[in-house]
C-alpha cells in the first residue's frame, strides 16, 4: 500500500524558520558557564479537532560549553504527523470526490463538510548545529547549519549572526543572515499550477521535483532600559523564490451564477474527481517585512514578557501578533506562567474560494486557509519546577483557536450560505526537562 504523505508543505517550511537566527537554535547565554554538557528536552502533542492534524514530537537541544564563552549546540527533532488537512475545496450541499495525492485512488468528502485530505502519516527529522564564540571582548558571532527531511520535502540551511555590545553592554546590535535551499518532492511530482485535478493514474500535469530558496535577514537592537526592564526591536526581511505552492491543494472551479462547484464526469472505467478542481498556484516569489518589539519587565520576582510583531508582504498579507506571558514564581522552585497570544491577518490578494468557470484563469489562486483572513487566539498555562537535583521541568497546556471569514466580495451565490471557513481548534501540550546545567 502506498504511503499517502501529503500533509501541508507549510508544516515543513517551519524548518526554514528554524534555520533563522536566534532562539530556535541556541540556548540563552548569560555568561561563561562551567565547561560541560547541558540538555534541554521536550515532548510535544499538538492536536486539532474534527479529525484534523495531530502531531507528536520529541526534541533535544544539547549544548556543550567550552572555556571563554564558546558554545556548541546540537539539536534534533523528530515529528510524527497524522490526520487530515483541508485540501482547499469548499463546502457543498453534495458530496465531493477527489483524486488522492498519490494519484492511485480517490477519497470522498461528505456533503456540507469542509473537504479534508484523507488520512496520512508522515515523519519528519530535523537537525541543527550552531557554534558561538566571542570576537574580541564586545562582539560575538554565531554560525549554524540546519537540515530536515520528510517523505516529500528536504530542507538545507546555513545561517550566521554577528552582534556587538555598546554602552557597557547596555546596548547590543545584531545582524543575521540565513539561506535555505529546499526541495519539494511531491508524490509523483508537483502538479503544474492551475491545471485540473486528473483521474486516478493520470500524471500528465506533473512537473517533477521543485526547488525553493529563502533568504532571511534580521537586524536587531537590544537595550537595557533599567535594572528591571529589557527591550528589543528587530527588523526582518525575508525573500522566498521558487516553488511556493502547496502541491496538494486545489481550488474549485465554480459556476459563474450559483457559485457551486462545477460537476465533472470521470473517464469511463476510471476513478476520478466528481467535480472540476484546479491545483492552486501562487507567485514564485514572496517578500516579507517584519518589525518585532519585545519587553521583559521584572516586578519584584514576577516577570512580564510582552511582544508585538507586524508583518507585511507583497502577497498583500498584513498581520499583527501580540504575545503576553506572565511568570509568577511560587516559592523558590516553582512557577506558574499564564500565556495569551492574539493574532490577526488579512488574506492574500490571490486567496479565493473558487475560480469562475468560463472566465479567464487568474494568474494565481489559492484557497489555503493559511493565506486567508482570520483572527487567532492562544490561551495557555505553564507550570515549572526545579527538581531535587537542581534540574528543571515544566508542563504547559494551551488552546489555540483560529476563526476566519471570507471577505464578502470574495464569495457569491450559494457559497454565501455555507460555512466556508470553519474554526480551527487545537490543543498544545508540552512537557520539558532541562538537565545538566
Amino acid at each position, binding site marked *: 500500500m502506498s504511503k499517502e504523505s501529503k500533509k501541508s508543505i507549510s508544516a515543513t517550511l517551519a524548518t526554514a524558520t528554524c534555520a533563522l537566527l536566534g532562539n530556535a537554535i541556541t540556548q540563552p547565554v548569560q555568561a*561563561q558557564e562551567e565547561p560541560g554538557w547541558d540538555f534541554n528536552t521536550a515532548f510535544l502533542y499538538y492536536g486539532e479537532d474534527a479529525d484534523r492534524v495531530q502531531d507528536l514530537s520529541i526534541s533535544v537541544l544539547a549544548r556543550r560549553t567550552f572555556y*571563554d*564563552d564558546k558554545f556548541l549546540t546540537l539539536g534534533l527533532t523528530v515529528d510524527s504527523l497524522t490526520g487530515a488537512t483541508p485540501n482547499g475545496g469548499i463546502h457543498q450541499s453534495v458530496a465531493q470526490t477527489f483524486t488522492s495525492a498519490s494519484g492511485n485512488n480517490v477519497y470522498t468528502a461528505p456533503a456540507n463538510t469542509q473537504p479534508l485530505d484523507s488520512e496520512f502519516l508522515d515523519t519528519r527529522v530535523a537537525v541543527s548545529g550552531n557554534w558561538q564564540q566571542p570576537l574580541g*571582548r564586545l562582539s560575538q558571532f554565531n554560525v549554524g547549519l540546519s537540515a530536515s527531511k520528510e517523505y516529500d520535502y528536504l530542507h538545507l540551511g546555513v545561517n550566521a549572526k554577528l552582534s556587538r555590545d555598546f554602552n*557597557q553592554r547596555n546596548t547590543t546590535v545584531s545582524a543575521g543572515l540565513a539561506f535555505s535551499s529546499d526541495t519539494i518532492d511531491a508524490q509523483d511530482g508537483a502538479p503544474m499550477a492551475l491545471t485540473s485535478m486528473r483521474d486516478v493514474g493520470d500524471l500528465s500535469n506533473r512537473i517533477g521535483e521543485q526547488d525553493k530558496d529563502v533568504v532571511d535577514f534580521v537586524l536587531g537592537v537590544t537595550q537595557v532600559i533599567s535594572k528591571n526592564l529589557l527591550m528589543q526591536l528587530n527588523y526582518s526581511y525575508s525573500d522566498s523564490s521558487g516553488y511556493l505552492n502547496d502541491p496538494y491543494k486545489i481550488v474549485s472551479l465554480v459556476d459563474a451564477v450559483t457559485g457551486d462547484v462545477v460537476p465533472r464526469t470521470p473517464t469511463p472505467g476510471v476513478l476520478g474527481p466528481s467535480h472540476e478542481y484546479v491545483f492552486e498556484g501562487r507567485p514564485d516569489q514572496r517578500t516579507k517585512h517584519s518589525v518585532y518589539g519585545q519587553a521583559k519587565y521584572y516586578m519584584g520576582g514576577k516577570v512580564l514578557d510582552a511582544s508585538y510583531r507586524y508583518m507585511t508582504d507583497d502577497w498583500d498579507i498584513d498581520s499583527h501578533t501580540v504575545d503576553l506571558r506572565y511568570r509568577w514564581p511560587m516559592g523558590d522552585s516553582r512557577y506558574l506562567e499564564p500565556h495569551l497570544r492574539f493574532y490577526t491577518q488579512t488574506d492574500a490578494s490571490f486567496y479565493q474560494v473558487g475560480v469562475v468557470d468560463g472566465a479567464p484563469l487568474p494568474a494565481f489562486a489559492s484557497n489555503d486557509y493559511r493565506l486567508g483572513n482570520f483572527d487567532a487566539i492562544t490561551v495557555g498555562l505553564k507550570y515549572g519546577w526545579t527538581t531535587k537535583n537542581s534540574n528543571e521541568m515544566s508542563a504547559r497546556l494551551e488552546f489555540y483557536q483560529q476563526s476566519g471569514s471570507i471577505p464578502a466580495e470574495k464569495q457569491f451565490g450559494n457559497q454565501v450560505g455555507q460555512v466556508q471557513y470553519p474554526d480551527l481548534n487545537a490543543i498544545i501540550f508540552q512537557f520539558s526537562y532541562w538537565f545538566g546545567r
Partner: protein
Amino acid sequence: MLAAIILAATPVVGSTANALNLGDYQGKVVVLDFWASWCVPCRRSFPWMNEMQHKYADDGLVVIAVNLDNQASDAEAFLQHYPADFAVYYDHERQLAGQYGVEAMPSSFLVGRDGTVVERHLGFQSGKTEDYEAAIVALLGSN
C-alpha cells in the same frame, strides 16, 4: 586614599565593620577584584585567584575581592560554593566600584607596590590568565 567600605568576610562567612584602606597595602602588589554572586565568570576566577594568592603570597602579592551584591547573603552563598583564601570586602554603597570605574563584571585591577593601577582586566577569560600571571610576576619582581 579610598573610601571606607564594610568588611564582609575573610575568607568565610562573617561580618565586621571595618574599613578597607588600600593605603595599608603600599609596598605590596595588589590584585583588586570586583565580583558578584550572579556573575558566572566569577566562579572561574576564584580558584585562579586562590592559586595566585598561594603561589605569590611570600613574594608580596595580596588578592582582595570586593563584592557588589545587593545582599550580603547572596555573597555568602557564593562563597560557600567557591571559597576564597583571600580577603573579601563588601562595597554596599558601590563607592569603590564607582571610583575605580568598574565597567564589566568581574573587573580586576593590578596595583603596583607604589599604589598605582598598572592594569585593568575587564571580565575573566581562562585564555588570558597566563598573561595576567606574567604581569603579576613582573610587578612582584620590581621594587
